[in-house]
């Protein structure tokens, strides 16, 4: 998903330099026939129907389902049993849920922190290096970015393999003999650390590319001015780079939080949330409750908690996005 999402922020503003005339509303003003007046609505109708049906309705439905008792029994019999807030009291009263919720938040925070910071450092590094090296770096990052999630997860499992993995072999070779046959997946924390590394590895390219693009957009004369004033590297960063990059940095941080909080694929494919549920996060928990155990009502309550948290972040993100594009919508 990452690959596509990445352009959410990027491509929409693709046309910021487009001629003003082509902006919306610039169409020839022909107060024409009824057909002409209806045409935009006709063109939008299929998209509208699809969005209301396949996005709008599920959003309502998840809320409604979270107030129902809906296990396999009720589902097969087609019974509608309302339980009020029971599903919520069940999950919120379950200490295991809180362990998973806290784990998810901490995991998301760490992954976002590391990937955004690394993305920023690489973006700044890219300005300092020769063109040839930069192309090599960009191609390398493109390879990481393009690899399908499942392929990447499989490769990481192989690299971290207990017996024949190249990592353990290398560690032994350079003298850390204790890593012979070391299992990276024996605890939840260690499993999540490997999964986190995988996510960070695939997340950095987008972040670095975006921030690099933002960084080269900063006017050169500002740096020249800083140079004349005798500013040190750190001072230049504080006074010039940071304020210019901050809005963009905030945007990509919000996007990263939204994406990383929802991660299911890599965690599930790595060890199915194990060992012993030690790497289970909220999306995995939702899947286990809902699909594996057929506790649809309880799982829907988990989903609603997730949606609520994501909605908070999304509102923040969209407010910034709309503000940054004012006049172009």
């Amino acid at each position, binding site marked *: 998903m990452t*690959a*596509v*999402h990445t*352009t*959410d922020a990027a*491509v*929409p*503003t*693709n046309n*910021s330099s487009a001629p003003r005339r*082509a902006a*919306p*509303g610039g*169409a020839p003003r022909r107060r024409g026939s009824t057909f002409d*007046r209806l*045409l*935009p609505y006709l*063109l*939008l109708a*299929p*998209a509208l129907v*699809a*969005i209301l049906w*396949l*996005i709008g*309705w*599920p*959003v309502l439905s*998840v809320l409604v389902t979270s107030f129902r008792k809906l296990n396999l029994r009720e589902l097969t019999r087609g019974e509608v049993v309302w339980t009020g807030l029971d599903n919520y009291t069940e999950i919120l009263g379950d200490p295991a849920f809180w362990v998973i919720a806290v784990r998810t938040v901490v995991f998301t925070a760490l992954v976002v922190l590391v990937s955004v910071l690394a993305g920023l450092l690489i973006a700044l*590094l890219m300005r300092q*290096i020769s063109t040839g090296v930069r192309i090599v*770096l960009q*191609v390398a990052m493109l*390879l990481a970015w393009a*690899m*399908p*999630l*499942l392929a990447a997860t499989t490769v*990481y499992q*192989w690299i971290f393999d207990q017996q*024949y993995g*190249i990592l353990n072999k290398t560690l032994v*070779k350079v003298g850390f003999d204790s890593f012979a046959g070391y299992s990276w997946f024996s605890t939840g924390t260690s499993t999540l650390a490997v999964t986190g590394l995988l996510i960070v*590895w695939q997340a950095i390219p987008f972040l670095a*590319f*975006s921030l690099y*693009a933002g960084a080269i957009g900063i006017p050169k004369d500002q740096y020249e001015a800083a140079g004349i004033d005798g500013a040190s590297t750190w001072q230049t960063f504080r006074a010039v780079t940071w304020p210019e990059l901050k*809005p963009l940095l905030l945007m990509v941080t919000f996007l990263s939080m*939204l994406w990383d909080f*929802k991660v299911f*694929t890599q965690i*599930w494919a790595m060890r199915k949330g194990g060992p012993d549920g030690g790497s289970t996060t909220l999306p995995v928990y*939702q899947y286990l409750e*809902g*699909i594996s155990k057929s506790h*649809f009502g309880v799982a829907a309550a988990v*989903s609603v908690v997730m949606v609520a948290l*994501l909605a908070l972040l*999304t509102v923040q993100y*969209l407010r910034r996005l709309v503000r940054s594009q004012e006049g172009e919508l």
Partner: protein
Amino acid sequence: MKTKKVSANVVALVVALFFAFPTYWMVATALKPRKDLLSSGYDLVPFSVTGSNFATAWAKPGFLTALGNSLLVSLGAVLAAIVVGLLAALALSRMRFKGRKGFVMMMLVAQMAPFEALLIPMFLMMRDLDLLDRLPALALIYFAVTLPFCAWTLRGFVNGIPLELEEAAMVDGCGRWGAFRRVTLPLLGPGLVATSVFAFVTAWNEFLFALSLINDQAKQTLPVWLSGFQSAFGTDWGGAMAASALFTLPVLVFFLIVQRKMVTGVTAGAVKG
């Protein structure tokens, strides 16, 4: 100053190695003979090279079916999303009408929809439609996932085409449809390609719904098939890496095709801040 640049270059090359290594290791492993893989020897570069892992992966039961399913579902969903998205994009970009701003906002919000958290209602909905265990369920969901993105992105590309060109064609006697077909559509080509590639990659990668809605092995998509590789391959890491490489190949080719577009897209977006 000079040493500073040299050390920056060295750091950059180390970073590049970090990003490229897994891809290299995937290919290198896929090319190694089986006996070299399960040995304690240390070989960063294959001693000898074989194509047998690819043959194994290709011949594994389910691989070709899964590949076909993935292609079918992804291409079907993307085609539909591009057509429906383009219609919406044209209205949002080229026409003025009541409620336009509302539709633009809807598209923007729909793009942020947390599909992963809609697993339960989607499952129940597909069950009601009697689509569980059937590929159209996935095609429908992937269509919904990619549609807002397609509409939004294509709107950006249409905005980038000067309206004067269309007007000129209309002055020269083209109808509205003719002007669109002869002027706008050809100019939109690269945008259409880039947008479909991104949408395709999303569908190609999707795992949660493919895992939840499909039980029948004959209907599995490639990600789900690959996730079960430990049962399919055992400790045959060569075969698993070959399958991963085959899975990666189409995406890599597409990425290289639109690579320029992608980077300029990111650039243009970022300058605004």
